[in-house]
């Protein structure tokens, strides 16, 4: 029998301890503090301490039209971005799922948008979207279409931002689904082929159902990040024109670091967290169901 020291016997709790303490100090306590602040009314610039006001800040924020539009906008942006990325990403993966010359190069190209700095990408797309010098309007006019205002107009700003998100993050879904496809057994596909199924039938009724759990996981990962999208919106529009592209994350940022209304900002942050958490939980349920 080996003599075991205290450390050796308690390795199970000692090994993760530093990481747990770190996350507790830098994340758990701050989040609890944010939740506490949501029950106060506190303007950081006033020099006054925070005063406890119960649900007053909630009532003020939740009845504000600007907030309600931000909620709707966050959902709209996320829904369209993730839906388009899901369809394009899965389609691309199905196309690339075969051996071909240059496959490794194709995968490298798919990685590039994922590692590109979002702020810089946002600025490059601003150059495309510029109404007077941008390539986007040049393409439209060359094909005989009227020019657009892109991110400079309230009606087109969200679709324009969705397009940037789609460009940057579709490859992530493609790569994840490709990895999932590579791990599938070949027998079901061959069996279906012998039974005379067409290529489309095989994809629709054999391949996609088998890879569904992976697709849903990819969508969860995208959904979590899309709900929190900050960099490209802040860099490209700052939430404008007016409030036309202000999502919850942008609004929370402005309330915290431009208006310094910490109590109301905390309410927005609590709502954002609940939204992210709720949506992820919903899709995880869906994923568990799809595995049965």
């Amino acid at each position, binding site marked *: 029998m080996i003599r075991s020291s205290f450390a050796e016997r308690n390795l199970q709790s000692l090994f993760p301890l530093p990481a747990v303490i770190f996350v507790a100090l830098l994340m758990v306590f701050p989040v609890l503090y944010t939740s506490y602040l949501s029950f106060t009314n506190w303007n950081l610039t006033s020099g006054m301490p925070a005063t406890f006001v119960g649900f007053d800040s909630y009532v003020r924020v939740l009845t504000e039209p600007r907030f309600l539009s931000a909620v709707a906008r966050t959902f709209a942006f996320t829904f369209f971005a993730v839906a388009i990325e899901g369809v394009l990403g899965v389609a691309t993966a199905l196309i690339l799922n075969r051996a071909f010359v240059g496959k490794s190069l194709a995968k490298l190209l798919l990685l590039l948008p994922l590692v590109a700095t979002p702020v810089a990408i946002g600025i490059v797309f601003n*150059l495309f979207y510029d109404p007077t010098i941008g390539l986007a309007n040049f393409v439209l006019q060359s094909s005989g279409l009227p020019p657009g205002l892109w991110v400079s107009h309230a009606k087109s700003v969200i679709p324009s931002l969705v397009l940037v998100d789609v460009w940057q993050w579709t490859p992530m879904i493609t790569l994840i689904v490709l990895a999932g496809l590579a791990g599938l057994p070949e027998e079901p596909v061959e069996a279906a082929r012998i039974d005379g199924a067409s290529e489309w039938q095989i994809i629709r009724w054999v391949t996609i159902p088998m890879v569904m759990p992976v697709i849903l996981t990819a969508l969860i990962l995208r959904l979590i990040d899309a709900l929190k999208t900050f960099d490209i919106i802040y860099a490209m529009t700052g939430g404008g024109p007016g409030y036309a592209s202000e999502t919850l994350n942008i609004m929370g940022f402005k309330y915290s670091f431009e208006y310094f209304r910490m109590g109301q900002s905390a309410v927005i942050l609590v709502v954002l*967290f609940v939204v992210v958490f709720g949506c992820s939980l919903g899709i995880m349920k869906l994923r568990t169901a799809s595995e049965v």
Partner: protein
Amino acid sequence: MNKKFASSVIFYLVVAGMALVVLFPFLWMLSSSFKTQVDIIAWPPKIFFAPTLQNYQKVFGEQDFLKYFLNSTIVGTAAVGLSLVLGLPAAYSIARFTQKKLAVFILLARLMPGISFLMPWYIVFSRLDLMDSYTALILSHTLIALPIVIWIMSTYFATIPPEMEESAMVDGATRQYAFWKIILPLSGPGIITATTLSFIFSWNNFMFSQVLSMEKTKTLPIAVYNFLSYAEVDWGGVMAAAVAIMAPAIVLTMIFQKYVVKGLTMGAVKG
């Protein structure tokens, strides 16, 4: 035979089309970084032009870009280092003792919107006089890198057969010894994946640095963003800055392509 040939031509045309869509913004950014302001605002947009280096001279000469470059490197390296120190034992523990609760805890860190702890940090760091300090910035970036390290490494450790440590422990080694001397030396590929990916995420981070850093500790994404604050956007300068900020991440990705793909997909495919 002919039909097969035609279908593979179509296939390659489709792939080339997709490659163009992916590459185009990079190519446009690169070419614009060599254009004068006159060439950039020309209508119709110019594909052929006389290249100039003036934008890069401006970025690296007047803008103190090297300092921001150094800041980004310091913060990213320190945050990744700290994350490995904290994260490797935790990841090992999750993999070997199947600590579900701990894994969920780490997943929550990935889920939580950064701004919900950034706001309290701002208040606390201001009080502690830690605004614009490397300490604050490194701590905040560690919270980006740590979940990535633990996520990737716990999956990686799980692929190493437990017999590796067990046979050493039968011979009298402690589990700690086995972890440091047997498991970690076998984990090179996993550590490369975790390091590359978490460094890139720290490198690209905008929100934390925008709030916590000022002139002294300013990182590259903030420097690039600040280019926009001038009355008339200096497109050539900002494109040169964009190229400079993306180049290291892209070079890293090219070198460690296999590992980056694994890191981005492993959690999703296995979990």
